[in-house]
């Protein structure tokens, strides 16, 4: 295979894993910028993916809707479930001033158990099957654009394209609007923000709910792009998204790059046998899979001084503190 062939083969796959990662990492960014650490992303993704997959499965069997409409409804349901599930974390973290890591761990444990339990009741097995393939072979019009068309609009998923669109909107909201600025202030210096009449509790709820929506949707995107059934797992994508956030230094542009790098490594680990150069290296799959986490650790170790992490993330809001 020539270099160009390899690129055309790999890039769509990489983009398919980049988008859910970037979207979920952006969700984590919303939550952390508002001052709540949300490591429950994995659990929220599982819940969103699970209910989304059930919805899609039922619609496939009973309603005769166009296939992409089904996908769209599934994504929406995933987002709504994500919001509802994340409210549990928001309540514990914001109102109850609970330890945010512990309440998130509870959600992470709850989600897969609940998914298996419920799926067994409904389907008899823990797998939720999805019948159709949601790949779009050619997006009319756009696919004929040279290079970009080949990479983005051939053999793409609606969920991927939608994910890119939502990512852009979310970044604009967070960085270019008044509400976005207010939300970010809650994670930096909530006491100062409060003194200016900003409702910290409300905005923190918003931050966590947005992260829930994005993670829930990310779960559905994961199901649609990577498999033909949902098996109570999102393969650690929630935690990987957390790594993306840190590797991306809490900055949307860098989050995209980080997500691309992480997605690239995942794709290489499974496709390296067709790439002559990498095949000659003869490294194990796991080395490529491990690399993103190790890279994040190295970044943490060496640039922690320039970290752009929100200063008040993880602290319950205490109005009496200065």
């Amino acid at each position, binding site marked *: 295979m020539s270099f160009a062939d390899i690129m055309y083969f790999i890039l769509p796959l990489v983009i398919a894993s980049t988008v859910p990662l970037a979207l979920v990492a952006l969700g984590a960014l919303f939550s952390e910028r508002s001052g709540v650490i949300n*490591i429950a992303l994995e659990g929220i993704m599982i819940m969103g993916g699970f209910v989304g997959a059930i919805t899609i499965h039922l619609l496939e069997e009973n309603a005769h809707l166009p296939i992409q409409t089904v996908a769209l409804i599934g994504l929406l349901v995933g987002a709504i479930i994500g919001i509802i599930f994340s409210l*549990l974390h928001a309540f*514990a973290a914001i109102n*109850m*001033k*609970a*330890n945010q*890591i*512990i*309440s998130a*761990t*509870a*959600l*992470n*444990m*709850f989600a*897969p*158990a*609940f998914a*298996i*339990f419920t799926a*067994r*009741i409904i389907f008899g097995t823990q797998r939720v099957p999805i019948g159709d393939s949601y790949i779009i072979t050619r997006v009319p019009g756009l696919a004929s654009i040279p290079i970009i068309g080949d990479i983005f609009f051939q053999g793409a998923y609606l969920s991927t394209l939608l994910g890119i669109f939502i990512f852009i909107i979310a970044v604009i909201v967070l960085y270019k609007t008044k509400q976005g600025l207010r939300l970010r202030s809650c994670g930096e210096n909530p006491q100062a923000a409060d003194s200016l009449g900003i409702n910290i509790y409300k905005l923190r709820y918003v931050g966590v709910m947005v992260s829930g929506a994005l993670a829930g949707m990310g779960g559905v995107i994961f199901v649609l792009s990577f498999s033909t059934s949902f098996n109570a*797992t999102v393969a*650690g994508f929630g*935690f*990987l998204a*957390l*790594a993306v956030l*840190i590797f991306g230094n809490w900055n949307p542009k860098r989050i995209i790059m980080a997500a691309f790098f992480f997605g690239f490594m995942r794709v290489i680990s499974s496709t390296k046998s067709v790439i002559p150069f990498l095949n000659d290296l003869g490294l*194990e799959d*796991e*080395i490529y*899979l*491990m690399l993103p*986490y*190790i890279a*994040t*650790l190295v970044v*943490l*170790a*060496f640039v*922690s001084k320039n970290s752009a992490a929100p200063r008040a993330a993880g602290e319950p809001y205490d109005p009496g503190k200065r």
Partner: protein
Amino acid sequence: MWEKVKNYLVANALNLNIGFFLFLLVFIIPQFFANNDSILLVIRGLIVATGGGYIFYKLLLFRKNNPNFKPSESKLLVDVAGSIIAILTGLLFGLILMLIVNPGQAFGGFFVILQGGFRNIKSFGDMIYFSVPIILTGLSVAFAFRTGLFNIGATGQLTMGAYAAVYIGVKWGVIGEFSPFLHWLVAILGAIVAGALWGAIPGLLKAYRNVNEVVSSIMLNYVAMYLNTMLIVKYIYNRDFARALAPKSTAVTPLMNLHYLLPNSSVSGGIVVAIVVVIILHIILNKTTFGYELKAVGFNRDASKYAGMNSKRNIVYAMVISGAVAGLAGGLMYLVDGKFLQPLNVLIPEGFTGIAISLLGLSSPFGVLLAGLFYGSLKQGGFYLQLYSFTPEIIDIIIAVIIYASALGLFLQKFVIRAMKKREMLIDQKPEEAVEGSDA
């Protein structure tokens, strides 16, 4: 020196005698009556009576020495009550879920969960067997927590420990020919060292680069998971079954005579190791300067530094010990007949359960021991739940709800204190009324 030892022996004569008596009952006597069910039953009864009587005696002594004891002022009692409320919340949630799913069998199933490991002798032994790794990961998380660190990386440390133990168990059979016990001991030490090294990484990063240990240990969990898969396939792979080779029989955890007392169950000497670790950690945390320093650094890093403690070194030590205990959990978990490490790229869930157990056990070693056994009992309940039409995952759901409820600890504590104060006021009022009555 001798004077001290003598004084200690005299002062603790009762405790030591009871301890020795229990030791004989558990480890020595049952082997002579291996096939005699009625005598075994008597022995079990004696163990329960001795243990229960001792605890009852201690409680009576406490009441005698503290006549004016007020429950609401005891932090321990309030916390314990909070844990119990969290447990009840979880169980209630499970019951409601079962009622929704299958009302006809819900109460039967719920009773099985409550019965848990206390169903019969076999399930009691199995309960102990399953709770060993859970107790140890719980101890690992609890120890880190007491020193102000959140070790969410117990899974990774456990995985590394498990790999090291199985590797030594498979490859170093030479030691086994020399002495079986030594082979097991070396494998366990390997697990401890591997876990300690894996735990040292987030400790070092925290101490010297100020990296949050939660984030770094999450990353290390996944690195350990992939590393484990890679190393299994490379060195100790059983291609026919797509799993790791079984450790040599000499490396399997010795049964320490426990199978005579609890026949037909999977119980092994692992529980003895776990209890020894509980005692060691209790002593380190509560009776030594070293433990005091570790806790001080956890409370306030700057203040402890000002007081002349080496806060960086202490953070690393705390993580190393925590990692070592989690590694030990991995070793004991996989040095068992019929259990195999698998190259599946899935995080081993016992590490995360440890967080729950540490929380329920109030981060105290003895509390963790009890909470771990409770979890083992629930797990057994989940196993027998399959007799009814429920899946065992309901146990994980209950545990998750219990953690969530205990995360709301502050709220629960206020609730408990209020309830206790109400009761105390009622008790206090009665004698006052009597006094008023006599005045009139």
